[in-house]
């Protein structure tokens, strides 16, 4: 995974609450077996609406999404994160996120910057007052620079550390290989196994 320290890019105000992952990418777009190419499905139901924010020339190159509350709720599909990334988004700012979406983002390298809804409102206003304006998101200092203002955001320390260093999660876990093996040795015999397969008649 690439390291993430700071990113400067176009901020896109998405004034919608409860944007679940079915809205981010509908199920019919989930059929690829790769991690790329999902940008076509991003916000598919809204992409044809002339007043949809990403159809405004000023925002089409957006890379920082300012989302409404409860963004990324619903389905566990990581395709939602890939679709945002495939489109070009590096950061999503918002006040509340679905748990699985937040976890998926951390794994895939999409920065989830959490701020109060009050700050979201201010960021929306800034991004709309000057469409196409660039924000700078600094993960080292956990700040968002927008116009002349600096806002702080929250992100858990562990995810931040991993993103800053570009660390592979599986590699990190495998450092505990011995502990995993020791744990496995103590598991009771009555716990279920799927193999050999047993089926009813």
């Amino acid at each position, binding site marked *: 995974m690439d390291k993430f320290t700071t990113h400067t890019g176009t901020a896109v105000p998405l004034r919608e609450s409860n944007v679940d992952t079915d809205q981010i990418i509908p199920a019919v777009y989930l*059929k690829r077996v790769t991690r790329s190419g999902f940008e076509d499905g991003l916000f598919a*139901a809204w992409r044809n609406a002339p007043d949809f924010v990403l159809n405004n020339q000023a925002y089409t190159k957006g890379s920082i999404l300012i989302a409404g509350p409860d963004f990324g709720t619903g389905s566990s599909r990581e395709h939602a994160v890939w679709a945002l990334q495939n489109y070009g988004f590096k950061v999503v700012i918002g006040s509340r996120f679905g748990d699985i979406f937040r976890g998926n983002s951390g794994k895939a390298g999409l920065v989830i910057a959490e701020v109060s809804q009050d700050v979201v409102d201010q960021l929306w206003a800034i991004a709309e007052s000057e469409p196409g304006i660039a924000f700078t998101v600094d993960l080292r200092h956990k700040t968002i620079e927008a116009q002349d203002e600096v806002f702080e955001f929250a992100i858990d320390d562990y995810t931040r550390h991993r993103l800053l260093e570009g660390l592979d999660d599986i590699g990190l*876990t495998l450092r505990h290989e011995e502990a995993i093996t020791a744990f496995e040795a103590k598991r009771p015999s009555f716990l279920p196994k799927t193999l050999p397969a047993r089926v009813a008649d």
Partner: protein
Amino acid sequence: MGKTLSDKVWESHVVHAAPGEPDLLYIDIQLVHEVTSPQAFDGLRLAGRGVRRPELTLATEDHNTPTENIFAPIADPVSKLQVDTLRANAAEFGVRIHSLGDKDQGVVHIIGPQLGITQPGLTMVCGDSHTSTHGAFGALAFGIGTSEVEHVLATQTLPQSRPKTMAVTVTGDLPDGVTPKDLVLALIAKVGTGGGQGYIVEYRGDAISKMSMEGRMTICNMSIEWGAKAGMIAPDQITFDYLKGRPHAPEGADWDAAVAYWSTLYTDPDAVFDAEVHLDATALAPFVTWGTNPGQGVPLSATVPNPSDFHNPVDRAAAEKALAYMGLTAGTPMREIPVDTVFLGSCTNGRIEDLRLAASILKGHKVADSVRMLVVPGSARVRVQAMSEGLDKVFTDAGAEWREAGCSMCLGMNPDQLKPGERSASTSNRNFEGRQGKGGRTHLVSPPVAAATAITGRLAAPADL
């Protein structure tokens, strides 16, 4: 201080803990399906890794599979690619798979319990948010993304930050005609779709302890619809009776050891939850949704709400948008809303009890001419069981379509979809915009409401017949 049920299960699975880091949890069972796994297996291959414990992994085909002509090649080339990819991955990595046509194929959250693989006290994951279903057995079960699927395949563990705990206590008995689905829809309307965010929820109280395993699964299934990390119910005699004799349930001395352990899995009387919610079961009634998230629901006897009734501006805007999408006018009685399609199925309400309940209402009636009703059993075994009871006949005699098992119209990835503007009464779990097909409009309902609605052509309860 005592421990909650989820504390007990969590703590017994910590492989490694360090300050400032998430706990590394051991995962007892991972379930896999075709949509969220291809990139995970591909990641393993790229990194030269294998599946650490294939015998703790189970795969099935469900999300994408057709519910008609299942022995013909899958017509949609992209669906076919995903299913073929899963089969190839299962073969390459030594993972057990129940493919389309196999008698244990079905929706991933239906086959785990049915095989007796879902058991109390386990940690279970799947690349699917409704993994919370398995919490009905007192397992800690939650949905994960594809990178996490890969992580579990490679290491059989997952780093997880510990959520807070919440109790939902449901006192009193459910009135006649009110089902667990109504209960959970009413709960979500009360707490909001974000109400459970950051929590593992334990459902308790008389209404829960008297409930069948099927009902408990319906409740836990929808935990994710109000944002909870997981939903759990303490195992009891009803749980043990359900499991006894299932193919993968422990046997002999192992059964006794398991029951002894399972019997310790309850919340200690002096344990404290971080949050509590109370619900009076006796005050509940059949519940249906009017909007585009599962929290936008009202009793069937109510009317479509007016956005101006919502004081919070975000909720008001959401309601306005939902009414526009749903093509509804504030003040319309819910009972006057006509539907085109009724969908009975999904991991929420596609079990045998659900089919029996719906059939008992449809028996001797006809599905309205204006309505198409799809009955999709949650698994191939549920289908066989239903047929042995003659339920298929009840459905087809009434004019409903009797299909093969799978997710089907719950998410509309296969050909079972709503057309733009079509309206459904659906026993599934999500009424999101476009969930059942682009432009489709979904009302979430219980199986009895689905059956009554099919007969009258408008949202209805059996009492209206």
